[in-house]
């Protein structure tokens, strides 16, 4: 046919182009996976020998060269929980407010949004400086798990808000309209209709936040401190895993093997949190929504 000719002249290079792009994309993926597997393998090679249950529960000795990371795990979890306990309510409340309760263009809304966007771009070390100046010195918390947790909470806020807000915005407008038309209050609409739909996005944001928080070094250097003993209260200083890894590799001669092992533990921990959170989200959504 007449038009076939045109297409036939166009066709081969399209096919070629498609193939080439596909090849490129596969190459990129191979490269990325390759490099990441390389890092992981390096870590495993360096640290797997040390990894054992004992390593997880015993205290570090000899500045971390010997012993385990028991106290450090505890500090890490404490700092993380404080950060989440503080950041989640504030962050999610802000997200709900921004997405559901005030018009996007209102001055309060745009002010909040602007400051969150700035916060999202603030380097973690600046958070560290701020936490040191505000929580540790001005509020007198000293080097403590509390101060570190609060600093991290500030850092997590923008991530939590933006993911949760995006999740809510992705819920079709029609749900809101029909809920309103049924005379439901906005709070009820939120809890019974919007949240169940948005929850995977929230969970993803939460996970992203936990990942960031657990891997954070710079913000905690000046706030939660270096002490590697078992914390007895929230006002004690406690060294988190990422900082432990940093210290072992930068400051302790012969600290490489435990640093590798600690990094492995951190990654496994994140993986576990990831899987558990995904599972819980799924269960919850299923219960709420009766999806099959």
């Amino acid at each position: 046919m007449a038009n076939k000719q045109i297409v036939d002249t166009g066709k081969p290079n399209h096919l070629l182009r498609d193939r080439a792009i596909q090849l490129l994309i596969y190459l990129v993926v191979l490269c990325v996976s390759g490099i990441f597997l390389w890092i992981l393998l390096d870590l495993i090679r360096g640290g797997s020998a040390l990894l054992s249950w004992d390593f997880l529960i015993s205290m570090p000795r000899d500045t971390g060269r010997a012993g385990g990371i028991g106290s450090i795990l505890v500090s890490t979890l404490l700092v993380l929980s404080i950060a989440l306990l503080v950041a989640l309510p504030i962050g999610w409340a802000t997200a709900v407010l921004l997405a559901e309760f005030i018009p996007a263009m209102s001055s309060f809304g745009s002010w909040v949004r602007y400051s969150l966007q700035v916060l999202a771009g603030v380097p973690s070390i600046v958070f560290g400086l701020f936490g040191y100046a505000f929580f540790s010195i001005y509020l007198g918390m000293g080097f403590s798990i509390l101060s570190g947790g609060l600093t991290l909470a500030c850092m997590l806020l923008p991530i939590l808000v933006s993911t949760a807000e995006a999740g809510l915005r992705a819920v079709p407008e029609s749900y809101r309209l029909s809920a309103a038309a049924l005379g439901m209050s906005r709070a009820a609409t939120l809890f019974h209709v919007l949240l169940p739909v948005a929850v995977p996005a929230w969970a993803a944001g939460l996970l992203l936040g936990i990942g960031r928080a657990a891997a954070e070094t710079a913000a905690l250097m000046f706030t939660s401190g270096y002490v590697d003993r078992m914390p007895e209260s929230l006002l004690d200083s406690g060294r988190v895993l990422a900082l432990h890894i940093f210290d072992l590799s930068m400051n302790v001669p012969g600290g490489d093997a435990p640093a590798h092992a600690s990094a492995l533990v951190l990654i496994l921990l994140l993986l576990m949190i990831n899987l558990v959170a995904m599972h819980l989200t799924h269960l919850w959504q299923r219960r709420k929504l009766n999806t099959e």
Partner: protein
Amino acid sequence: ASSHKLVLTGSSTIAPLAVELGRRFESLHPGMRVDVQTGGSARGINDTRKGIADIGMVSRAMKADEQDLQAVTIALDGIGIIVHASNPVAALTRQQIADIFTGKITNWHEVGGKDARITVVNKAEGRSTLELFLAYFQLKNSEIRPHIVIGDNQQGIKTVSGNPHAIGYVSIGAAEYDAQRGVPLKLLPLDSVAASVVNLRNGDYPLSRPLNLVTRMTPTALAKRFIDFARSEQAYDLVEMQYFIPVSVD
């Protein structure tokens, strides 16, 4: 700081030692807590002045404007020049080192090594190791032409051990620890005195520094007890384990 808790902050060189000291101190005095934070000597001074810390750790001699604090030396440490183990250069004169660091000598073959560009590893501004090094070679930091600037000791060791043409300087203790465990690293003698703990102890090695614990003029009873403990013979083995030199109490 409460009556049963001691907070130490300051030099990252002393911190590992202080942690071990604290651990033993705690076992001797149940109910005590010793918290050690690292950072740098300046932070030790700062925090002690502000009262955030009971004791500051300072890995250099006290300066003139720091006479408001009371310093006690608990150990000695040396600074050693390090190169990669594969570097054929066995020794450098004081002048050669100064020239290398100021960029007048840029190739190893000028000092009898292979034909390769020298990578100068310097420390970041403010570190006491840097201050000591500069003072010894009578240089100013602005004269140094570094290729890499590092923070902590281990970063220096990792940089030099990963680069056959690098030259840097770190705490002798740390370097010796790693060198003995197979890290490709070589300590160069200084003024033809081998950089080793032994020579440091003899007092032969020229580039050494005191490791101080500082307090405010009237230390708390607890801080005083800890400092006394740190200087006592009970702590010698801990000091030596970190490759430092205990100072003998008279």
